[in-house]
């Protein structure tokens, strides 16, 4: 392939000279390319902004949602409720109906858990008989107060901030809870554990045996 080329013939030398002469055209071509590059960059700005749209307006994704009359939640019970996500369109259909668990530990003391498992977001199910949340995906289990009981989750259930206004229970919601937006892993033991567990196993999140 790489054979040695013979020296340029007179005809070819003529062509080389010609190439130099048309450098004006090649200059114009280069300018044309540069203009296209500039226009491309200019067009890329709105395109990138369009693609990043969902990210750039993320500050707006939290707002207070009314869960209704707080009196309808009986003390000692954990109840599954659902609300319409505040950031939604008509064509979202039923995907915008977001469930949550309202736990009423004592009269007036409400904790609202997201149904998403803190492991990988599957829907945990509440079992009032055993007072446990169980996850159907990878087997995460949580106690009634949302703290981790067993399985792969690193932390307890996600909680929505709550407040009471005019007798109504409000939660600050609007986005799917993941480790990145509610990631503050509570130091173990800070959350109230079931009394018996707290006494014997100060940190049920560890793999240490609870006794002996």
């Amino acid at each position: 392939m790489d054979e040695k080329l013979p020296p340029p013939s007179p005809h070819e030398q003529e062509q080389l000279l010609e190439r130099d002469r048309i450098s004006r055209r090649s200059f114009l071509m280069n300018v044309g390319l540069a203009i296209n590059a500039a226009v491309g960059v200019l067009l890329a700005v709105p395109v990138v902004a369009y693609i990043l749209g969902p990210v750039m307006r993320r500050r707006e994704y939290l707002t207070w949602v009314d869960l209704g009359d707080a009196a309808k939640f009986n003390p000692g019970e954990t109840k599954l409720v659902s609300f319409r996500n505040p950031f939604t369109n008509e064509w979202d259909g039923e995907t915008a109906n977001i469930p949550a668990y309202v736990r009423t530990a004592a009269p007036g003391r409400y904790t609202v858990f997201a149904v998403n498992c803190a492991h990988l977001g599957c829907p945990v199910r509440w079992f009032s008989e055993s007072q446990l949340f169980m996850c159907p995906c990878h087997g995460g289990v949580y106690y009634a107060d949302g703290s981790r009981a067993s399985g792969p989750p690193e932390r307890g259930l996600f909680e929505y901030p709550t407040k009471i206004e005019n007798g109504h229970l409000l939660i600050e919601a609007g986005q799917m809870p993941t480790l990145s937006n509610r990631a503050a892993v509570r130091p173990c033991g800070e959350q109230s554990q079931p009394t018996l567990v707290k006494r014997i196993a100060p940190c049920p999140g560890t793999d240490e045996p609870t006794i002996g």
Partner: protein
Amino acid sequence: MPWYRRTYDWLERRLQLEGPIKDAVLHPVPKSTASWWYVFGSASAVLLVLQVVTGILLALVYSPSASHAWNILQVLNQQVPLGWFLRAMHGWGSNFMVAVVVIHMAQVFLFGAYKFPRELTWIIGVFLLLLTLGMAFTGQVLRFDQDAYWGLAIGASILGRVPWIGGQLVHLMLGGPIINGATLTRFFALHVFILPGTLLVLTVLHVWMVVKLGINEWPMPGRLVRRETYIQEYNELAHKDGLPFFPGAAWKDAYFAAAILLAVAICAAIFGPYGPTGTPDPTVINTVPRPDPPFLWIYTVLSYLPPEMETPFLLIVPPIAIAVLLGLPFVAGVGEKSWWRRPVAVFTVMFLAVCWASFTHLATSTPWSPKMNAWSGSPIPTAFLEHRTPLERQGANVFQEKQCRNCHSIGGSGGERGPALDDVATRLTEDQLIRQVLLGGGNMPAYGSTLSPPETTALVRFLNTLHPNYQPAASDASRAVAEQGGVPPASTVEPGNGQHKTQ
């Protein structure tokens, strides 16, 4: 001259495609490549065409609207004539395509076909594999049902573990704060335009390079690849001991392509389309999401990883794996091609295959998940309740009612998260049972705050009957000694399961 000949000539004079096509299909290839082992690449391409065709046909009806997609799939399944069959073809075609692409990759790896000068062919192939997997995942999303919804939730949760920009990535993936219409439309764009477009372009490049660089010769032990001499050696093989690709080697490709298409059609006809399962309504909590077959192994890995290793694994291992695949031809670009002299390569493939098979198999029975309906839906086998005292029967009620059954099986039914309890009494004494139930431990929640003393007593009495006839229940020797005033008992054998209990 017949009319079709004249038409052809008229077209050919304008298109001038005959020359390049003839060059491509008639180019000589080494005789050894006319092998049944070389059919998987062409089969992948054929399956890609099948997917494009069935995909376009489905797109005639489908609408990427979160409030309608599920209903449209129902219409496709129930009302559009043979709509179910096309859905099934597309779904099974996807499974077959992932499988064939992976087999093709393993074969290329084992035959050393990624070595000089075919490095770029391999690299593009790696991207083709990733794109194929991407198509499988985005396709699962378009089947907008419960599994799709919660599959997205899992995907978002994984992205949410990325440090610093996790939250932004989640919103970028979902197209908003939650899984909703915007999520579906962007996955639609990915599945229908972006990924298949890239896939087709890269496939053309991939095939182009196969034609230009020649089909890899059958590796012979000792015939080493050297950059200086390989091309010359290959050309000698192809020209002196070769045959034209068409029909010399292509007939096997054609047979296999037909067989694989027929297999897809038969699977589609027998097993039918995938889902859709329940509606994508997150308020329906009673759901057990499962990933599609190509991702079952990930499901297993995520259940068995220790919690502290999970985020590093999810975020670090995939880039490393891809980097290893991409770097392979640069690290091992020359030298031995034959699997006879590449034991590490062979064992790597075998190891990965065994891992994949066992993980996938595990994911079909999900022993790590509680069986959510076992407590109310799995009866205790009669043998375990015969001749039981009223208290022990109440203990069985406690066992069911407190959802113990969701994680512990009895008589082969129930959850497998915890150990089966058919003979738990032989392993734990009464006191140990009480301790285990109340305090949990070993990945079992503590039930101390949910079980009343009578419930605990009843439950432990029931559990204490769970031992086979021939083996006594475990008992605490010191307790018996204490009860009998320091005299060791003559025998600790108790009546077993199914026997009358006199106490």
